[in-house]
């Protein structure tokens, strides 16, 4: 049999690490992991897409909207669908890893908690954007309103980023709670209210084909919210991960 080599790393290797670059690479490896798992499980994207689609159909039937009112209500309906579908998509990310006994391995590994947070925000953002990019043309088609404007993209991106920044933190919070999935919307929706307000208004401006100059303040506001929520998430995530292996 081949010689077994269990390398005993000398202590010096631990102190000569370059944390910043290393963290970026590790975060990337974690994003890759999330994407691979999602490709095989198809949990987040598929569930949230179907939910958003059903929500749109129900809105249309329940409200029986004519063209004029639709332009006023459309942005709100769209974001309500996105946000509830997003809760569904985010809800299972940590719960699943915890139940499968996977999360502990990440927690004992030498990876900065901020990098774990950033990676999860990025992968959640990716999944929700895929869902939203599929819903958007369907929304425009089903409701017959001209939403397929290039300026909708930054709005959707910034709005969803803010949602993921808080959502990632909170989905880790509720993963240890008794009433996990039920608790997430109760905690998350009020807190992301500013992001929803900003996104709805910005979407309305896009829909009314207002000049970019009017849209920019709202985009700036959304970006500011995102920055605040991301900063809070990076700072607090380590306290949420502590003891979250079991």
């Amino acid at each position, binding site marked *: 049999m081949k010689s077994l080599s269990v390398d005993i790393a000398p202590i010096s290797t631990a102190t000569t690490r370059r944390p910043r670059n290393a963290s970026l690479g590790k975060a990337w490896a974690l994003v890759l992991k999330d994407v691979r798992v999602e490709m095989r499980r198809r949990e987040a994207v598929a569930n949230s897409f179907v939910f958003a689609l059903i929500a749109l159909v129900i809105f249309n039937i329940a409200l029986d909207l004519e063209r004029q009112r639709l332009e006023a209500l459309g942005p709100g309906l769209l974001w309500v669908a996105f946000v509830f579908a997003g809760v569904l998509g985010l809800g299972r990310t940590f719960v699943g890893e915890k139940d499968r006994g996977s999360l502990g391995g990440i927690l004992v590994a030498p990876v900065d908690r901020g990098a774990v947070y950033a990676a999860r925000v990025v992968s959640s953002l990716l999944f929700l954007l895929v869902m939203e990019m599929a819903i958007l043309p369907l929304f425009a088609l089903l409701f017959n309103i001209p939403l397929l404007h290039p300026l909708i993209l930054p709005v959707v991106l910034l709005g969803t980023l803010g949602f993921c920044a*808080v959502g990632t*933190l*909170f989905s880790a*919070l*509720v993963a*240890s*709670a*008794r*009433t996990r999935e039920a*608790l997430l919307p*109760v*905690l998350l929706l*009020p*807190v992301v*209210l*500013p992001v929803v*307000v*900003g996104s709805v*208004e910005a979407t309305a401006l896009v829909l009314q084909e207002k000049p970019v100059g009017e849209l920019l303040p709202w985009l700036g*506001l959304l970006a500011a*919210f995102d920055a*605040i929520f991301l900063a*809070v998430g990076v700072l*607090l995530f380590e*306290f*949420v991960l*502590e*003891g979250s292996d079991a």
Partner: protein
Amino acid sequence: MREYLGVSPRLGTPMATHEFPRLRHGLGTPRTFAWAALLAMPVAMYFALAFAPREATMGNVQRIFYIHVPAAWVAFLAFFVTFVASGVYLYRRQERWDILAVSSAEIGVLFTSLALVLGSLWAKPVWGAWWTWDPRLITTLFLWMVYVGYLMLRSAIEDPTQQARFAAVFGIVAFVDVPIVYFSIRWWRTIHPVVFTGGGLNLDTRMLVALLVGLAAMTFLYLALLSLRSAIEAVQRRNAVLLQELEEREEA
């Protein structure tokens, strides 16, 4: 050696002075706060109902203002205390800060409810509607929803250390979010014109005095409730430790 809440490992040994109410060293005991509140509340009532003049357009119903505003103020103060205590808890990991945070949040929810109900009672005769979607009202409603969520989160997590830690994280995020919510709604309102203008009060001096007395009285009430509530919480947790020890002794 730091024991759970300063309870000595030997059963029945009383806590020296029970660890939590730090407040008592600086400001006084629950009892003094309770007395102060008890004395201040009738005085505040007098100022609100008799001393302050009858408001010209709104009439006597405006006197709700002298309780409504202090209630809203105390709610905000209480959530600020939860925010600070949460931060200190995460940094120091001392249980008394968690006790302070949860006690203050509960009282905050109570006073937010009070402020919402009183506000509605005031709004109906004056504005003709129980509720308007004004930035301040939305923010108050937001406070109520978020801190009810805080209490729900606490009750949904069984491991007490994790409960304290997670609640602290949520308590910080929630409070940071308050100004963000307020300003986003204000921005939003600049587009959708406000139906009713706010209080629109021109306070004369006697009204201002009545308000300040009300604020002081309500703050004493808050401090009394806070020190009582946290003393109860401390005793409850100590009892849980003692019960656990008793059980283990009986087993042995």
